[in-house]
């Protein structure tokens, strides 16, 4: 049976690294290329999807992360998750402008904060964070400790990490473990 429980993550503060679970957060995967697709997304979310690779955009309530030239992830904290999803679904998916998928239960959002977070990530990630950590709003998809993740640099030394639910517990244990030895 599908396990939709949140991982058992104990919020942790170790060696100036804060690891905390950010759930529940709604996440929607958007795919499309057409002009109408961008227009509809803009209308519903009042947000322009980022065009440039490895970037993100945001509006008052929504964050959109670039995943691929025709794919984005929008995440937001809102009680009306179903309302927003249904609106996007009927405006885009139903009329074949693109696809809208609810991935709230598929990905888990973990917040990492503190001056040593990149030291922890670098223990299991070959990505070069030099540019990433300097620029707010950059995003990237990479591997941390052999696990696929999406990273979103919110602001200086404060990032949101998205990981598939089934890997989240393992990754959190690893993060906490690594934080001990930075």
């Amino acid at each position, binding site marked *: 049976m599908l396990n939709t429980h949140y991982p058992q993550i104990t919020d942790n503060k170790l060696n100036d690294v804060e690891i905390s679970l950010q759930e529940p957060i709604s996440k929607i995967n958007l795919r499309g290329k057409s002009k109408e697709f961008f227009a509809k997304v803009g209308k519903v979310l009042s947000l322009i999807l980022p065009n440039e*690779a*490895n970037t993100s955009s945001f509006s008052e309530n929504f964050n959109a992360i670039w*995943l*691929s*030239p025709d*794919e984005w992830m929008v995440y937001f904290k809102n009680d009306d998750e179903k309302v927003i999803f249904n609106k996007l679904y009927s405006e885009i998916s139903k009329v074949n402008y693109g696809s809208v998928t609810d991935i709230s239960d598929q990905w888990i959002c973990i917040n990492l904060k503190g001056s040593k977070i990149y030291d922890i990530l670098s223990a299991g990630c*070959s*990505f*070069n964070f030099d540019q990433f950590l300097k620029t707010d709003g950059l995003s*990237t*998809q*990479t*591997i941390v400790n052999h696990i*696929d993740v999406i990273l979103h640099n919110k602001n200086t030394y404060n990032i949101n990490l998205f990981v598939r639910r089934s890997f989240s517990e393992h990754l959190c244990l690893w993060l906490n473990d690594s934080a001990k030895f930075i």
Partner: protein
Amino acid sequence: MFLINCPFCGERDQSEFSSGGEAHIVRPKQPTELSDDEWAEFLFMRKNIKGVQFERWNHSHGCRKWFNVVRDTSNDKIHSVYKMGEKPPVK
């Protein structure tokens, strides 16, 4: 471990990619009309040369897009990277 410059995301470590073998192998238009030998030729036979080779790669842990790479298999030097559908560079 070499670096691959993904045409969509930029330079990343090889571990983020998966190889899709030789590029520009055209699927026969009418597979049913082929002999077993011709079909096997299409399915299995690859050049696998030492030297400059045209390959397909997939950024499987990043943007998940396919693209082409011209790589020298003897020293892993990558001569160029181009998107699917684009004309391969002439040697």
